């Protein structure tokens, strides 16, 4: 394990910027989010969970799929390659793996020849992910329910632990190994520091709430699909899309054509199953016209349908939805309610 002193952080990022576009947590007028930084001064390393999740780098809220004029059609190119993301947390790096099951190819089971989304792939394949351990998880974090953790490395290329005076790096993927070999950091972390990591990990885990056993969640959701419990769960939901739009794993989208005269474009836009229009058909019929049906859909997609398709829950326990819900409909309580039903 190698390390850099915190006092060398600026140099490290400056060097990184020579070969990579660098994205990192920033605070701007649009709330905390992962943004491309101009200089190291833009980075805010004190944010634990950004309000907007980093999925928007790979899957922007609005993305032009192609545009046309009378001369022809063109597909916009992603201009930031290769790029690095500094400061992701485990819940977000894991969400990339989950989204890649849908858009990418790396984990597509069972159908190898499924469609690969080129817009996702060209970004995901060219990205170097730095995952910083969470020394102080929030009270809304529940990554441990989904076998993640504040010091879990899943989904990252390079795992970083922040100590009092240093950042300690560990290569996780081949891409990460290559980066650490090629970069000119020579200082090794001492045994004492490596021991310190264990200590930090223990403290961080002690901040998390008790892990809920969710092993029955999948089967339970299937059993209760028709039960009145959904009315109870959904009653207070006001059907806004705040939860889905801050969620690092929600990935439903709408496609919209915008055109005038002889030019136009096709755009892909985030959508949410919470909206009534989401399933409205051309005939006017809406199979999910009721709020209860829509809330059930979101919960089922996360904890049942995705499991059916890909063997994982579509939730990493980041807790963003818990924080933003205007009526405090806490997904952790929904899960507990379902399990104990």
């Amino acid at each position: 394990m190698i390390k850099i002193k915190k006092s060398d952080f600026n140099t490290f990022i400056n060097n990184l910027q020579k070969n990579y576009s660098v994205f990192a947590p920033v605070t701007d007028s649009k709330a905390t989010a992962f943004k491309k930084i101009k200089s190291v001064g833009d980075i805010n390393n004190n944010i634990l969970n950004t309000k907007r999740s980093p999925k928007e780098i790979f899957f922007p809220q609005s993305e032009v799929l192609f545009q046309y004029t009378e001369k022809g059609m063109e597909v916009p190119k992603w201009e930031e390659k290769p790029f690095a993301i500094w400061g992701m947390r485990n819940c977000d790096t894991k969400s990339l793996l989950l989204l890649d099951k849908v858009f990418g190819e790396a984990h597509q089971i069972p159908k190898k020849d499924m469609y690969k989304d080129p817009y996702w792939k060209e970004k995901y394949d060219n990205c170097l992910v730095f995952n910083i351990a969470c020394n102080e998880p929030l009270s809304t974090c529940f990554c441990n329910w989904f076998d993640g953790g504040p010091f879990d490395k899943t989904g990252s290329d390079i795992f970083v632990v922040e100590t009092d005076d240093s950042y300690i790096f560990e290569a996780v993927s081949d891409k990460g190994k290559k980066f650490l070999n090629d970069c000119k950091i020579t200082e090794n972390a001492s045994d004492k520091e490596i021991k310190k990591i264990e200590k930090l990990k223990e403290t961080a885990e002690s901040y998390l709430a008790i892990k809920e056993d969710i092993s029955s969640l999948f089967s339970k959701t299937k059993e209760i699909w028709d039960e009145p419990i959904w009315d109870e769960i959904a009653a207070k939901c006001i059907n806004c899309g705040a939860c889905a739009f801050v969620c690092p794993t929600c990935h439903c989208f709408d496609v919209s054509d915008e055109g005038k005269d002889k030019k136009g474009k096709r755009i892909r836009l985030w959508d949410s199953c919470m909206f009534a229009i989401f399933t409205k058909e051309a005939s006017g019929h809406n199979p999910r016209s009721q709020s209860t049906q829509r809330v059930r859909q979101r919960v089922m997609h996360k904890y049942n349908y995705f499991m059916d398709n890909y063997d994982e829950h579509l939730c990493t326990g980041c807790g963003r939805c818990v924080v933003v819900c205007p009526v405090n409909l806490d997904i952790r309580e929904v899960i507990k309610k379902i399990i104990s039903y």
Partner: protein
Amino acid sequence: MIQNLRMEVKKLLKDKKVDIVLGWEKGSLPLSSTPLFIHEEEDVDRLIFDETCRNNLTTYLTKDKRKLGKTYDKIGIIVKGCDARSIVLYSIEQQIKKENVVIIGVPCNGVLEKKKILRKTENKEILESKIDGKNVHLKGRDFDMIIPLNEVLCDSCLTCRYPDAPVHDIFIGKPRKEVDIKDEYKNVIDFEKKSSEERWEYIKEEYSKCLRCYACRNVCPACYCNECFVDQNDPQWIGKTPEVTDTIIFHLIRNLHVAGRCVDCGACVSACPVDLDLRIMNKKVEKEVKERFDYTAGLDINEKPAMASYCENEKQDFIMG
């Protein structure tokens, strides 16, 4: 007060005067509450009322949103002043039959704006909290803080003239005495003084934050259209992107649509996940309605809506001549 409130609610349920009562219970996060729908007497003890009860529950009354599991003949609802004014609005606009709703007023000292509190803690997480009559006590991992209540109340509460339900069937507790508010429109007046370029810059900057999650619209008691114009796609009225050119149309049209109807309950401001300043334009429109028609929304159940009535001696200076 809370014991009397619980007793009253129990009585209403026992006597079958109502089928359900809408109130609040303690939420899952510090300084939060969450809507509580009481069907059984045994649930009444979960009922609370304090400065964390910010949700305007009347939004659950309108037909599009009435999804409390099923529809009810008689609904009891616990209201702050602003909430009661929303019910007046529903009644005037014929969205509810007043006789089907039992309005239970409670004395409101204002509700907390969590975003203001987080600004005070510099976004550090609050782990424990306590409210006494004057202060909010906060505890985090490495801080202890006591903040005077009036520094962290919603802006709407700080300029509220009607903390007690102007219309109610039952009132529990002691009503607050008349509130003297002098600078209700101070923000609007300051805003009006800016140049049009400055105003445009501010509005553009604010509305460019919008995520289009529609939390503002969906918590709003005045927004109950069966189909909102942003959801119509045949024909499509506005673009669907989060670009400010699209979001601004949504927000400005919503502003005008709630003209003379907005009761400044602050639900939209609290609900917005990206802290957009939704209030300035609503308040501006409210001020216009007040000056032109001498109308305040939600006070008189027999009044006609400001935008649906006409009077010959109204100001007509907008007609170019």
